[in-house]
């Protein structure tokens, strides 16, 4: 794969629509959303359960819930190649070698019947093209790099012999074994305790810096976003509400949903905290979507046109990282300068 561009996107999704069908319901999980990530940067895709963040990121790679029929439209390019028209074999090869995925539950990635080390070595042989001896060495060094003490010993351990934090590290080592260009971390710290969460976030950041790979963090945890992300895309009911640099989105949010989400997260280091605010109501039922802004029913600023017209993503501010917001009401009310 050619590194034809250091700064252009390495994984890019546009105008994605994903409908999921079970025998009884159909749900529009992703509704015309997109994102991009460049080598050396971390993109956080933020949303609550059901916002479509995981389906949007993993869906184009063919990683979708089992037992559900899928209709997927739009474009998705990895290293400039259209991945939606790829054969299943090519896509599978790409998933293994180009993308590494860290899941919330390490046991969904590790085989409980096999020792940890050989699982890593197999990945390194298949996707990074190493010999058996090289692969073993690589596996041990990956374990060490992932912060696992005594990696020679851990190589021959089974997953159940490791603690939760160590398993999470082993899964990160597994995701790195194929030397991926894009590391996707799907709620990597949700199941972990606070002190172990901090360790794992520090590890992901260190790997990202050392290898200069692209990282996509899928999460609902604003704290994790604040630690890791360069850019943020906020997803609500399958649509991007706001995107931009982490500093713009987290410290100067514009969309009422982003503002509400951030206000509901208290910051105990700040003394002028005004208390935990709440967003009234619950996200819309994605089986019966109305036209217009998805957030309209929960929005304090709602106007009649919000219920009839889908708000476009509009560039606000003149920062080097585009800050886009899908809310003409706030933009007009606060006189925010647009740049489209």
């Amino acid at each position: 794969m050619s590194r034809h561009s250091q700064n252009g996107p390495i994984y890019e999704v546009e105008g994605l629509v994903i409908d999921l069908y079970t025998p009884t319901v159909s749900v529009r999980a992703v509704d015309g959303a997109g994102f991009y990530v460049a080598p050396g940067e971390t993109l956080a895709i933020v949303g609550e359960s059901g916002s479509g963040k995981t389906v949007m990121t993993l869906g184009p790679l063919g990683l979708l819930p089992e037992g559900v029929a899928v209709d997927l439209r739009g474009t998705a390019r990895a290293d400039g190649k259209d991945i939606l028209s790829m054969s299943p074999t090519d896509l599978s090869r790409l998933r293994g070698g180009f993308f590494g995925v860290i899941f919330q539950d390490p046991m969904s990635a590790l085989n409980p019947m096999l020792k940890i080390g050989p699982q890593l070595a197999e990945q390194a042989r298949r996707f990074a093209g190493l010999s058996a001896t090289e692969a073993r060495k690589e596996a041990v060094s990956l374990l060490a790099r992932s912060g696992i003490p005594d990696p020679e010993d851990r190589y021959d351990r089974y997953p159940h012999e490791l603690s939760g934090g160590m398993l999470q590290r082993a899964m990160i080592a597994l995701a790195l074994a194929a030397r991926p260009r894009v590391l996707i971390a799907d709620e990597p710290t949700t199941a972990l305790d606070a002190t172990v969460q901090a360790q794992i976030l520090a590890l992901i950041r260190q790997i990202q810096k050392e290898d200069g790979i692209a990282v996509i963090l899928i999460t609902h945890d604003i704290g994790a976003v604040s630690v890791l992300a360069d850019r943020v895309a906020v997803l609500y009911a399958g649509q991007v509400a706001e995107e931009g640099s982490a500093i713009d989105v987290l410290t100067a949010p514009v969309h009422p949903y982003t503002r509400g989400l951030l206000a509901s997260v208290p910051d105990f280091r700040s003394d002028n905290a005004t208390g935990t605010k709440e967003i009234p109501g619950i996200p819309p039922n994605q089986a019966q979507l109305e036209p217009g802004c998805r957030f309209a029913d929960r929005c304090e600023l709602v106007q009649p046109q919000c219920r009839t017209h889908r708000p476009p993503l509009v560039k606000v501010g003149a920062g080097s990282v585009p800050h886009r917001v899908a809310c003409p009401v706030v933009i007009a009310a606060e006189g925010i300068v647009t740049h489209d």
Partner: protein
Amino acid sequence: MTDAPMTDAIVAKGLKVHFQTAAGLVRAVDGVDLTVAQGAFHGIVGESGCGKTTLARALIGLQSATEGQVQILGRDRSDWARSDRKGFARAVQFIFQDPLGSMSRRQTVGQTLEEPLQIHGVGDAKARRARVAELLDLVALPATVLDRLPRSLSGGQRQRVSIARALALSPQVLICDEPLSALDVSVRAQIVNLFARLQAQLGLTIVIVAHDLAIVREVCSAVTVMYLGRVAEEGVAKSLFADPAHPYSQALLSAVPSPDPRIEATRPRILLAGDPPSPRNPPPGCRFSTRCPVVEPRCRETEPALRAVQHGGAAACHLADANIHAMI
């Protein structure tokens, strides 16, 4: 929060809960003294395996204690529950982490809320219906949920129903085991605010087991930090969070990221090595000694007792008097 608490709502002394398992004895709670003031909103925090859920269950008797006593509202809990089961249930209620698992899936919300009133013979059918309507109002649920089954409700709505059910008999003490963990961020804020409002409105004493420290700091009046079955530190929530004396509390608070990336980029962090040890095999001396960044030889030999510290609470650390605050 009442001005002058007349008596403590909960007093636990020397509480131990040990489990015999195939792999050995698990000391889930291993000698805990806990005092919850009347009208307090008391948070219990710590990581998995620290015993916080077992402690909450042992307080109300859902889990029998291996050793120690619990007094609730001035009465011995086990005597009270044995001699006057219904009276105890009216005064003290428990809220579970998973509301779905704690409700009958075949009962409508209306039936779920009316059941405790029926069991305790409260009013006639008409009065009970009025009370159910009042309860829905209290937790801000619309009357339209009355005929619905739990599984057709959202997570936040289910937790509201389980709170309404716990309030049906107007208890004085509410013990909640991680009632927020299963909820989305924006819904979590709704339920936190609901607890705070109910506490003020009804003068309840609330004990809440939680792992979201920022929320505990926001709503709780008092906090207990647990580590491996013991109390590491306790005090007034805001004072303890501002000036934690125990190195574990310091690390735990340091591990919580700020939602502001500008603070996050420059803030010094304490990163602990490794995971907490297993409660099957706690280390000798101070239980935190295996991960403590400022450990001294005596820490590995003698277990420190809780002692008064600067923020007005107490910490179980040999070094708590020394100036180790500069770490954060």
